[in-house]
């Protein structure tokens, strides 16, 4: 287990260093990156099998006791989400290799190593059982995302980068204040110990800490009213980068909330969180309706969908938490695929703007299919994964009698479908518009891009096919989260 966890965290780093060392040699560079990302992804899959079979594993880094050192905890929750995330990054990197030599590509010398660093940060964030290490992991993810976002240095990227960087810097600052609050009240930053001690705090302090970390994690997760950075920044990055961001970054925030707020017993915040969830869902999708660029539409949908996960979390029931976890598993690949398809649209149409494209379904039926499946899934149309996830969230809410949030969720679902229809009608149907088109990717690159996207689409279909198993696992993970004693016992045997 130690090996698996170490591989997931450190292998991408070694790959990044190697890739930087041979950065003027493209094949070596790509092989190093793919090897690092691939081995991490593989390790995470083995980890899932192991954890599902044997239960939670912990690794005391450096052999120190949890009171002193850092503990890495591979519980079922982490083991469920990590493979999804790491596989997405791997597939996106494959796509990126196909996208080379087009004007939409990221700089391969940088994007590979940076994706590796990001991967490492994601693994660390999912596996850590330490609040401060979580901060470091966040910073690792963020700093690599800052650089990935701005490394081409054009004007829109620098502008968007500033919004993104500065807002997240403030969030990180708030995180540190939060650590100070927690540390002064409990004398530790170990999550298991916190799960013991925070519920003992007096109500005001406990809720204050909970609410404060809602703001901290909520900014990363882009919930209402802290989402403004997202739609401004995501669309400006190269497609592959956006795919990773959209698939992963906000989810790390949701993940942290699901872990933190469940373990620390923040049920009292539930009602207000449900309100925030409803607003996030509806405002996100309304924002998407107003946009006229595929990548911007999809960016707003990230927010809207975050609302569903937040809704599941806010219910603070096993069913709700399980639904949120299942939604995470469904959403990450679906969103990444949609952005990859956005990249394909750019490649075929010369732009991701709705006004400048049309009739793609006739010319590239495969792209149309690869868009339709995740788009329908996003809108919650059966039999795709989004339906199961949405049904899980909504039925958990119905059990709790949350009428307002259910109505909001259904409304958001309908409007999501409307905005997907908008993309479909204007990009895939309709007449072809003329205009200057940049040179598309060469044939081989196109084949790689299509294969990577198709693989990812197949992945989303697998999520749907095995939704039953995944929901069972999610429920098991949610039971552990809702019963912190098991987590504590795993960390301090």
């Amino acid at each position, binding site marked *: 287990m130690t090996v698996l966890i170490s591989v997931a965290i450190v292998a991408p780093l070694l790959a990044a260093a190697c890739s930087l060392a041979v950065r003027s040699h493209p094949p070596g560079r790509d092989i190093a990156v793919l090897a690092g990302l691939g081995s991490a992804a593989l390790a995470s899959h083995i980890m899932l099998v192991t954890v599902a079979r044997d239960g939670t594993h912990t690794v005391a880094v450096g052999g120190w006791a949890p009171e002193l050192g850092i503990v890495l905890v591979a519980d079922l929750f982490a083991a469920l989400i990590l493979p999804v995330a790491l596989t997405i990054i791997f597939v996106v990197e494959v796509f990126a290799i196909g996208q080379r030599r087009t004007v939409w590509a990221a700089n391969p010398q940088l994007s590979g190593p940076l994706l590796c660093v990001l991967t490492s940060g994601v693994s660390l964030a999912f596996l850590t059982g330490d609040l*401060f290490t979580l*901060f*470091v992991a966040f*910073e690792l993810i963020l*700093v690599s995302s*800052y*650089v990935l976002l*701005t490394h081409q*240095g*054009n*004007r*829109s990227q*620098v*502008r*968007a*980068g*500033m*919004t993104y*960087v*500065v807002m997240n*810097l*403030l969030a*990180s*600052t708030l995180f*540190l*204040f939060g*650590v*100070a*609050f927690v*540390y*002064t009240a409990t004398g530790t*930053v170990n999550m298991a110990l916190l799960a013991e001690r925070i519920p003992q705090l007096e109500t005001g302090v406990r809720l204050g800490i909970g609410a404060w970390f809602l703001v901290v994690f909520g900014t990363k997760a882009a919930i209402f009213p802290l989402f403004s950075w997202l*739609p*401004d920044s995501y*669309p400006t990055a190269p497609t592959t980068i956006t795919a990773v961001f959209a698939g992963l970054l906000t989810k790390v925030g949701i993940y942290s909330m699901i872990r933190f707020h469940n373990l620390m017993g923040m049920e009292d915040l539930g009602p207000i969180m449900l309100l925030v969830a409803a607003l996030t869902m509806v405002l996100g999708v309304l924002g998407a309706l*107003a*946009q*006229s*660029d595929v990548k*911007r539409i999809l960016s707003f949908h990230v927010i809207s969908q975050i609302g569903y996960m937040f809704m599941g979390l806010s219910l603070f029931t096993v069913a709700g938490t399980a639904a949120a976890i299942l939604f995470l598993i469904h959403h990450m690949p679906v969103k990444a695929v949609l952005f990859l398809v956005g990249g394909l649209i750019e490649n075929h149409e010369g732009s991701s703007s709705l*006004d400048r494209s049309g009739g793609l379904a006739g010319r590239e039926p495969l792209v149309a299919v690869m868009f339709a499946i995740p788009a329908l899934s996003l809108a919650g149309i059966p039999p795709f994964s989004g339906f199961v996830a949405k049904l899980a969230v909504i039925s958990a809410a119905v059990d709790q009698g949350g009428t307002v949030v259910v109505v909001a969720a259904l409304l958001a679902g309908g409007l999501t479908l409307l905005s997907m229809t*908008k993309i479909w*009608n*204007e990009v895939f149907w*309709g007449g072809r518009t003329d205009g200057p088109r940049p040179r598309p990717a060469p044939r081989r690159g196109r084949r790689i891009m299509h294969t990577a996207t198709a693989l990812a689409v197949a992945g989303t279909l697998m999520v749907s096919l095995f939704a039953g198993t995944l929901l069972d696992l999610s429920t098991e993970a949610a039971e552990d989260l809702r019963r912190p004693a098991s987590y504590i016992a795993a960390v301090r045997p």
Partner: protein
Amino acid sequence: MNAALLLAVGGLTAVGLYLLTGRSLSRIILGYSLLGHATVVALITAGGPAGWPPIAGQAAPEDMSNPLPQALTLTAIVISFGLTLFLLALARRQRTLSGDDLVEDDLEDRRIAAAENAPTGPEDPVAT
């Protein structure tokens, strides 16, 4: 808890926030630095009272200042140092592109807001 240090934390945070919400990137960086100071002071304040430097052998453990927040803040300082460097580079890039260091509004957001506020004719049924 130490009122003097609390004052420093509060003051640094307030001034930092004020500077951070400015429109000039140089002030944003100043604000971020101050906020960084504030977090560091907050963390060591959270760690307990002042004491001797935590070097084993030079002072008894009970007389030492709490080393853990110091280690945490060292990590935090280094991170914020790195991020400040990055912000500086971003600012320099912005200067190259636009000639000053002002943060610009998002153009697409502005365009949509403007389209909303401007009186528009009947909508094209297909475009919407």
